[in-house]
């Protein structure tokens, strides 16, 4: 044990200032390097890809979120390592650390900066949602904003455990698979015949809850011929994991050929369908009650 305990404790104020300056320098330099790397290297490969105008917008949003989160993450992780390296208890010593006291200046900065970050993200998110007509999400039966120009209405009908699709402008034909024309505004009307499901067209950036008795509208404009994955995104029973399909985006002539083929193929079923409606009250429920 030291005969003079105060000798083992260096001047705390001067040391704290040095640490603060040094750590701030490390953090700022790291952020200046990391943020462009995140934007340029990670941004282009972020989900859900560029299958539609909406999904491309989501890639941009995810990039913005990640770019803003990167300095915060670096602050925490770098400080952790900085503390481990610099504030270790010397071997063999049993020192009492300096008393922790509040610092009004730091606390104020912390509250101001984090509030500004969160509020600016909230504003950004709201603007993007409105500007992009819901950004591929289900916007309820009366969306606040609607894309201008013609739109192809397609109904998504969920039930345990399959999605089917109805095209009201093509005689109300219902099909077991989803085909969409490229580069056109699509107005999806998502509903359910039983429990809560969620229609998720992954590469198109569309996710809309499929609720019984609810017409949940989502807009999407595919950008390019491709196939895309469809999944149910709401745990809906024993075969939820099997509720998937592959959708197709094709050029308009190919779509016309396909839809007319479906009209012929499913004519017997179409005769049995109820008139097109935004929601359905399935009957009968004799057994289920």
């Amino acid at each position: 044990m030291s005969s003079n305990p105060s000798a083992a404790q260096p001047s705390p104020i001067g040391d704290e200032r040095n640490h603060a300056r040094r750590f701030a320098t490390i953090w700022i330099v790291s952020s200046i390097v990391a943020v462009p790397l995140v934007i340029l290297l990670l941004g282009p490969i972020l989900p859900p890809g560029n299958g539609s105008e909406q999904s491309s917008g989501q890639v941009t949003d995810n990039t913005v979120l990640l770019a803003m989160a990167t300095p915060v993450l670096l602050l925490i992780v770098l400080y952790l390592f900085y503390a481990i390296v610099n504030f270790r208890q010397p071997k063999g010593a049993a020192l009492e650390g300096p008393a922790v006291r509040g610092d009004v200046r730091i606390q104020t900065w912390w509250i101001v900066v984090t509030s500004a970050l969160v509020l600016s993200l909230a504003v950004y998110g709201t603007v993007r949602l409105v500007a992009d007509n819901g950004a591929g999400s289900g916007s309820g039966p009366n969306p606040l904003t609607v894309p201008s120009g013609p739109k192809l209405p397609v109904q998504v009908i969920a039930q345990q455990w399959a999605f089917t699709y109805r095209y009201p402008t093509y005689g109300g034909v219902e099909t077991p698979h989803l085909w969409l024309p490229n580069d056109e505004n699509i107005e999806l009307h998502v509903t359910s015949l039983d429990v809560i499901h969620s229609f998720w067209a992954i590469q198109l950036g569309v996710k809309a809850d499929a609720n019984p008795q609810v017409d949940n509208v989502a807009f999407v404009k595919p950008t390019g011929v491709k196939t895309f994955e469809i999944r149910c995104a709401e745990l809906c029973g024993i075969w939820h994991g099997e509720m998937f399909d592959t959708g197709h985006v094709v050029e308009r002539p190919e779509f016309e050929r396909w839809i007319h083929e479906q009209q012929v193929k499913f004519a017997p079923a179409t005769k049995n369908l109820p008139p097109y409606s935004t929601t359905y009250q399935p009957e009968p429920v004799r057994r289920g009650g």
Partner: protein
Amino acid sequence: MSIFARKLLGTILAVAALGVLIGLYVADWATSFPKSMPARTLPGNSQGADLTLETVAAVGSKYSPSHPSWVSYLIRSNGQWVHNTDYTVPANSVVHVTIYQFDTPTGLRNPFLSQVQGTEGGTATIDGKTVNAVEPEEASHTFAVPELGVFVPLPGVPEESKHLCEEAPCELNMDHRTISFSFRTGKKGRFRWQCFVPCGAGWYFGNGGPMQTFGYMDGFINVV
């Protein structure tokens, strides 16, 4: 070793052993499936296989002591009805299915499934008559393999029938409908099949109980 160290070591070993046992139990439970029943291979040079099934309003205590009142599918194997919904069929071949349907109608939630889809010729034979659709409200069950595009509605026995089968096994002298169809298998795989009629009596929207429990109104088609 101090007493504390020994206690600590003992506790760690006991917790680890318990964790391993729980892990083994869960792994065993998660990977246990009923034995798959092979379809009957057709004799001679005929290609493909036969699946003979029946649908019953109540599976009975003989086949399901825990849920005797549940609706279910059964398969015919070696002259006996067996309570199993996991079937094995050959790849790249035609599977001929015959279903004896003993249950009364419930009706389809989605009338789109009233059309026969994915079978040879897009049709099924119901009581000797070839059809491509049934009335949606007459459906009692469906046999559907969505990944293979197969959807076959099974019409119900009229409720006023005099010889309704109460519980399995149901024999052919009871009132029933006979549905037969064929579908072509492709590559090997394990495909889910299910009933799309909400036929779980007494459950919310008819989709609970036997509709949510593997081995009654759903199963797998193993294409090998």
